[in-house]
């Protein structure tokens, strides 16, 4: 039995604690009395994953076994999560590969000829052949690429089908191949409570027309948090859309969950609680930090980006979307949920090198913002970890670096939108339409490897709830120019940051440090 999550109160015996900051990390000595939230220990992985998958497919929840849904002459579309999940990418073989191989085997046995595989990448960039191959495995890739294994193209007007509107007037428009299939098998990995479930098809295969109904400032300000589906306006919208599309196409959902083993050897000790580090771990840390600090930026970037996580699979569930997702959420909570008593004045976050949108790419400042104020800030149930009007202190170098191929609209967003306003609502009304319909960005999204023109806007909306909730944001170690463009302030050290936060929260604030990665979901009571 793994140990549950832990809230540590820093005292005299507490060693300096690990803080991630981009492609680097440090040991920080937090003030006495700081609460540190650790996730539960990594759960043991399932030994025989293939058996578990087979079992799930043959004994699904709220559905006939998969083989009974397959028959010759049918149209089968297998959709899978793109490279934004899991983070970091999984060491080969990816669990999606194992699932897809079994599904394909069953389809072959049933004599299904018309099978296509689609990546549910929505407005994310197209994946390269190599990236797709990593997810589906070589066998599947070689048999289906490129004609029957594709990226979803949300701007291919001829291959989008409108399925009508929900009772809230939300357009549901998804990939035609999927919409016209007899069965969609969705192969998912759920990393955090936000993903999976109703979100999978209704978002993964949708177009801008459909996405704008929930990816907007209003919805996100009312998603508290978006990692707590029952309290998330965003998820209510997903569910309405999902139930509408379920009326026209049957979805067989397969969801997998993974444990917290995000660091490959020799960095596994980074998952351990610091006071349990052995002498060897400490030596490895010192050597690793020194090497990392001294390495040239390019080499360092490569090392971090090439990291593949040796995840253990903690659950595979298949069948009806809602029933499956309930089980999945249970697994996610088992791995990530830590109960915390009360909010604090200041929340401290160490932001790592990776977010869903910079796999094999560059973590640009807008992604840093969305990771801090979007993803991490929203890692709560019930109430935010920080009180309203409190301060957020986050660690990241926040350099103004962009990947011109992957994030072209981000560059322009940074230079031309954020220089004029940082208010999400203003940005939405003034600029979104223009970027979303810009033919050049659409061209790049479809033909190159660019995120859609509207994507940086979604990143900005992601932080809308945090922006209106927080009284102050201070970035430790950040590029001052970048921080100020975001309306934030940069500090050199934690001590300075706390000093600065004093203006907002007083001289004796209560402090909380969310110890992550791996992911920790705080259940704030």
């Amino acid at each position, binding site marked *: 039995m793994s140990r549950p999550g832990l809230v540590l109160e820093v005292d005299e015996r507490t060693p300096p604690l690990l803080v991630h900051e981009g492609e680097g990390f440090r040991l920080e000595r937090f003030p006495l009395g700081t609460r540190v939230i650790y996730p539960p220990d990594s759960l043991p992985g399932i030994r025989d994953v293939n058996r578990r998958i087979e079992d799930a497919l043959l004994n699904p929840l709220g559905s006939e076994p998969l083989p009974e849904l397959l028959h010759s002459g049918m149209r089968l579309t297998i959709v899978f999560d793109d490279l934004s999940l899991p983070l970091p990418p999984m060491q080969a073989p990816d669990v999606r590969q194992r699932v897809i191989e079994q599904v394909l085997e069953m389809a072959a046995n049933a004599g299904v000829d018309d099978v296509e595989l689609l990546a549910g990448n929505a407005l994310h960039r197209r994946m*390269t*052949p*190599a990236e797709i*191959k990593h997810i589906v495995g*070589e066998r599947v890739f*070689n048999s289906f690429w490129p004609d029957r294994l594709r990226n979803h193209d949300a701007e291919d007007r001829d291959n989008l089908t409108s399925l009508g509107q929900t009772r809230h007037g939300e357009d549901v428009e998804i990939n035609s191949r999927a919409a016209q299939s007899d069965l969609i098998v969705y192969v998912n990995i759920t990393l955090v409570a936000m993903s999976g479930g109703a979100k999978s098809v209704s978002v993964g295969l949708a177009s801008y027309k459909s996405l704008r109904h929930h990816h907007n400032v209003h919805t996100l300000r009312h998603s508290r948090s978006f990692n707590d589906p029952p309290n998330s306006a965003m998820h209510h919208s997903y569910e309405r859309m999902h139930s509408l599309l379920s009326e026209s196409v049957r979805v067989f959902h397969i969801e997998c969950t993974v444990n917290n083993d995000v660091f490959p050897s020799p960095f596994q000790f980074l998952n351990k609680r610091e006071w349990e580090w052995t002498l060897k771990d400490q030596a490895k840390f010192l050597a690793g930090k020194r090497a990392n600090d001294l390495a040239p930026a*390019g080499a360092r*970037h*490569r090392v971090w980006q090439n990291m593949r996580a040796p995840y253990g699979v903690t659950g595979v569930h298949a069948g009806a979307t809602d029933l499956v997702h309930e089980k999945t959420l249970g697994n996610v909570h088992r791995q990530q949920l830590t109960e915390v008593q009360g909010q604090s004045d200041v929340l401290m976050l160490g932001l790592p090198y990776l977010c869903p949108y910079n796999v094999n790419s*560059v973590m640009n400042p807008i992604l840093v913002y969305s990771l801090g104020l979007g993803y991490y800030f929203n890692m709560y149930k019930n109430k935010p970890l920080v009180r309203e009007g409190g301060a957020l202190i986050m660690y990241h170098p926040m350099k103004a*670096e*962009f*990947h*011109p*191929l992957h994030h*072209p609209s981000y*560059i*322009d967003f940074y*230079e*031309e939108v954020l*220089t*004029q306003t940082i208010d999400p609502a203003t940005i939405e009304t003034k600029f979104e339409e223009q970027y979303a319909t810009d*033919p*050049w960005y659409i*061209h*790049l999204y479809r*033909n*190159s*490897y660019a995120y859609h023109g509207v994507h940086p806007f979604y990143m900005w909306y992601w932080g809308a709830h945090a922006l209106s909730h927080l009284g102050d944001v201070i970035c430790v170690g950040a590029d*001052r*120019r970048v*921080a*100020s*463009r975001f309306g934030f302030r*940069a500090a050199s050290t934690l001590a300075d940051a706390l000093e600065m936060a004093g203006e907002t929260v007083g001289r004796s604030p209560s402090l909380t440090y969310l110890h992550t990665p791996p992911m920790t979901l705080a259940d704030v009571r």
Partner: protein
Amino acid sequence: MTDGLAGRTVLLTGVTGFIGQALLERVLSGHPDTRVVAVLRERPGMTAEQRLDELIDKPVFWSWRERVGDDAARATVRERVRVVTADLTDSVPELPDDIDVVIHGASIVSFDPPIDDAFRTNVVGTVDLYDAVRRAGERGGKKPHIVHVSTAYVAGSKKGIVAETSLQHDIDWTTELECAVEARRAVERDSRRPEVLGRLRAAALKEQGKAGPTAVAADTEQRRRKEVDERLIAYGRERARSLGWPDVYTLTKALGERAAEQTAHDVPLSIVRPAIVESSLRHPYPGWIDGFKMADPLILAYGQGMLRALAGIPDGIVDIIPVDLVVNALLAAAATPPEPGSPAYYHVGSGARNPLTLQRLIELVQEYFDEHPLPGTDGRGAIRPRDVTLLSEGRADKMLGTAERAMDFAEKALLMLPSGDRTRGWQRNLYKQGREVRMLRRYRDLYGAYGAAEVVYADSATLALDASLPDDAGCDSAVIDWAYYLRDVHCAAVTAAFRGVPPPVREPKPILTAGRPAPPPIVFEERADVAAVFDLDGTIVASDVVEAHLWARLLDAPLKAWPQTMLPVLRSVPRYLRTEHRDRGEFLREFVQRYEGANEAELRRLAQERLSDVLLRRAWPQAIRRIRRHRAAGHRTVLLTGAVDVFVEPLRTLFDDVLAARLRVVDGRCTGTFEQPPLIGEARAAWVRAWAQKEGIDLAGSWAYGDHYSDRPVLEQVGHPVAVNPDARLYRHAKRQRWSIADWDGDSGAVTTLLDAALAGASQKGGAR
């Protein structure tokens, strides 16, 4: 004293000059019954009358205008001054026949003009003027008194005491004049010899070759003209030295005196020879000066802490004379006509009666600046001048020569280095330092002969004139208290411009702790009749033809085949560089042979699938944004490139028109040649002109972007040229022409990440097979 000029008409030349202004002012303010005829040249867009009007606004007239009132002053000018429009170097019109006195102050200002220019102004102009004066005098039945303004330095390289007499020499000025005019013809003819033109063209080709043949031709002609001028300057300098004068200015002034003596043999002639004329002692106000005179740049350079060494002998006499003393002497001489045929000579200087040594001059200037240091231009308090070392002539020349050679070498070296932020920074520094060296050279040339001559100009005739003048308006240099004059009058006057601006009030300024705020996005005026013309390599994309080719090949080759793909290209690089240096068209033709036999469809597929990412990855975000801005404003966007069209396909959607090289294809295979000649340099410019005319594009309102000197012809076509990350030559040109210079950068330079992508692609490809 009686006004010897009352009721007379005085003709003045050179009234816009330093002495001329003072003279005119003094006649207008001090001789109410004297009329003036001013000979003035027209300037483009300005008549001689307008120039006179402009002149009256100058500081020299301020105290007079204040005294009599502006309107009265203007009325006086209208009433008493007549303007004769004439260019004395050209031809002299008929002059009014009521002239009593002529004061001829016009002269060439440069010490080192081409020989024929010097003769035309100082000799021919003088002779023509005096002839016209004599004719006018005959018409009016008068014998006008000619006051010829010369210089004390006509004495040439003599040492010791120089008397106030006619110059002792037997040089025939007409022969010299003829030879000077002939020299121009000979030099012009000589400069057109094929050997000379060939050499000039080779030099122009080296400098301007990349900008195309028209630019080379223009540069060759410019070089020829410059060489002709330099040659004629050398003719002048050497002729002067061979005859015993320091430069052609003093030689021609000397011959001008002789010409005057001969032309004006039957009218009264006074020759006045001032020494170094500087700011006025008393009139119109102490310290009046117009521009900087001979010693002033040195004084300023010293005050600014830039002068560290000076050539000269400490006990040499610097013969300085305030301008009002010169004017007094001139007017006194004008009122005292000698007998026709026996000219009067006057030295106006201080060396004889009140000598000032160079050492003393330096001490006084130092004292002045010790007491009144100049404010620093950067607001960092006052400048503390450095001590000046007096060097012998030889050492000074040697030092300066070394500095000039070093500058020259550094400039050449910089042009050879690849361009970048750092080299551009060096270039800026070099430009500044070069200015300093050039300035020192100029002082050296200017000051060399005049600064500290071991000569004394006797001035007893001038002293006799002084006796006829009132005490406060005399011409005796003994009245000058050098300490007072230099410290309180002259230095203050010379440095006034540097002190005029009150030191800026410096409020504490907010510090931009988070860097400069981003400039607002550029929004272009919406117009459909303008274009934005872009070059590709180096302007939009950080790569070139060779690199694009390499990527194309590497991306398609399995990893283990890389060395054999890369080697032949790398081996050819030196040859390509040589060819490109010579002629870009030739280089492109040579390079395109690599595609011989390539399957065109395959090439297209490859470019589309693999190369487009490389291109977009290497593109500068600012460039893409700029193109899109132009499009948003409705401008026509045009891509002009020597790259093969297949490779620019990914960017096609950004442009309304793309003009790229096309490979010739026969039966689906490339032949290794172009379909049409690639557009390079001036061909592009010609295309742009023709295209603009056909499409009704207003080029003056259009933009062009380029990074290389060969883009200059295109950039010159439009009203808004932008040099993007320019190479050294284009940077220099853009700086001089005040073109905008853009520094575009980004992650695009990161070849390593690209290499990653290529490696990933290559290994994946290998696996797939």
